[in-house]
């Protein structure tokens, strides 16, 4: 399993955004966003709905072009055909009847962007099997993609992204539709992948709790602005208050940290959605 990945160098900078702003139909969606992602690190992209998480993904994927700023892959501009970024979307709109097995979907990750009909190949099949094994998906490898459970689909999509040997793996709300047990399994799997193969992993979530045990860094987004760094340096009253543009309390309750609006808060409704509990030991 290990040798199917390109050996990466720990802590090597994989991606950096510098002063990225994005205007869409007269609205500023992102304002001066800058951060970098490193090999072997798992970064949580945390923020409420509409904070700009998906837009940051779209900018990294090249689906949106920043109005200002730079997106650099290991110091270079994004190539048009970028195989170094694997992407796992939040959901795929696939009909249950579509004739595509989990293993076919993984194989498409290898060469789905190529033209023509693939010839049967032993090495290709072997690689697909290894990937299915890596995400513990052998049990449902021959099931229709449309009939997989949320957790099964999530892991199949991870294998689909990993088989192209990316340096960076983006996952859009991978925990959104999972039960707690599947949630823990997927998080554990992603942490393992990041460390073992020196891939930079960026996971978006509106709730940072499940990610805390494995998160190396946090990229906190609010109102199109972002702050990044180790969790204990970002999830702090002064940093988050500056980000939100109004006062935010970071409370310690029963070994957890609760991010809540201040007493005289006018944007109370917004913060209600973003409150986050952080175990003290980690925060």
């Amino acid at each position, binding site marked *: 399993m290990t040798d199917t990945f390109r050996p990466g160098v720990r802590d090597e900078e994989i991606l950096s955004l510098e002063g990225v702003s994005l205007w869409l139909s007269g609205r500023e969606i992102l304002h001066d966003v800058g951060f970098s992602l490193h090999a072997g690190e798992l970064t949580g992209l945390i923020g409420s709905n509409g904070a700009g998480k998906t837009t940051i993904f779209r900018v990294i*994927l*090249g*689906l949106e072009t920043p109005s200002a700023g730079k997106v650099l892959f290991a110091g270079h501009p994004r190539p*048009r*055909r*970028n*195989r170094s*970024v694997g*992407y796992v*979307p939040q959901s*795929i*709109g*696939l*009909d249950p*009847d*579509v*004739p*595509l*097995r989990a293993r*076919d*979907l993984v194989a*498409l990750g290898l*060469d*789905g*962007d*190529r*033209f*023509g*009909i*693939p010839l049967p190949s032993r090495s290709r099949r072997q690689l697909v099997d290894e990937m299915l094994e890596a995400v*513990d998906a052998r*049990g*449902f490898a*021959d*099931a*229709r*993609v449309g009939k997989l*459970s949320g*957790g*099964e689909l999530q892991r199949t999509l991870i294998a*689909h992204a990993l088989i*192209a040997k990316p340096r960076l793996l983006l996952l859009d709300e991978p925990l959104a539709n999972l039960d707690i*047990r*599947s949630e823990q*399994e997927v998080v554990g799997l992603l942490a393992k992948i990041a460390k073992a193969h020196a891939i930079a992993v960026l996971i978006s979530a509106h709730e940072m709790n499940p990610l805390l045990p494995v998160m190396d860094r946090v990229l906190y987004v609010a109102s199109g602005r972002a702050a990044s760094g180790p969790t204990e340096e970002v999830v702090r009253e002064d940093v988050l208050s500056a980000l939100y543009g109004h006062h935010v309390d970071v409370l310690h309750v029963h070994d957890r940290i609760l991010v809540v609006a201040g007493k005289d808060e006018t944007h109370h409704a917004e913060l209600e959605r973003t409150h986050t509990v952080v175990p003290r030991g980690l925060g």
Partner: protein
Amino acid sequence: MGAILTGIFEPGFFTSEPVRVAVIVGGAVSLVSAVVGVFTVIRGQSFAGHSLGDLGTTGGSGAFLVGANPLWGFVIFAILGAGAMELFGARRPRGRDMATGIVLGAGLGIAALFLYLGTTHSNTTGATITILFGSMFVIRSSMIPVFALLSVLTLAVVALLYRPLLLSAVSQDIASARGVPVRLIGALYLLAMAVAVSLSCVTIGAILSTAVLIGPAAAALRLTKRPGLAIAWAAVIGLAVTWLGILLAYDSYYWPPAGRGWPVSFFVVALILVVYLLADLANGQKARRAGARAIASDKGPGVVAGRAWPSSPGEPGAE
């Protein structure tokens, strides 16, 4: 044995020139439609496929009005229609459907005018039947190379786009991020679909072209979960129903009301329905058997779900 064969293949079936042309052209066209149709179903573009047939009617009836070969009318108008859908249609399926509907209504209105003018002018209703419901037996053998060329070209486009089409069916965003020109792929596929539909407009009729596009593909999707096999199944079903339809239509010359024969398009479409129902039935049986196996081997649905996570065996419901 000989008597049975004569009973199935009525005298003259193998020597008739119209039958020969119908077997070649009808077979090839249905095969192409079935293969193209697999992606039509996967991409959820059945409505667009149906609309291309209706738009082809405008061209086919226009060609009939000016005395040209209807095939070119069908092809040109279906391609123009596909272009219009692509231009008007947003990336969202909803926008695409509405754009399709608007173009479609206009096209059918013009077809009604052309068919009215054509039939009142030439005082025959036969042409209307031919345009709307097709007739494989009146295709001239000199047209075989044209049909063959268009068929091969269409299949080549689908073969070329095979993987990007599957990938963008899974997720347009994944495909785009991987550098697949999703919009261009979609436009090229629509073009292939336009040609496939116009070919079947001639053989099976503009109204029924959707049946050979969607029917074999829908049945194939019930029979297999592998993309390559689904295409193979669709091709076989498309070919089989067309050839069987031709045979039945030829034999029906002796059926009541004797001496007229039943239209081949009717048989093909009826056979597609039968095959689809059988495939659906087979699929249901397979699912039931799988369920019965799971229960018999003490692996209820709980474990089927639970095996996803072998590292956490204590799942409630797994016991």
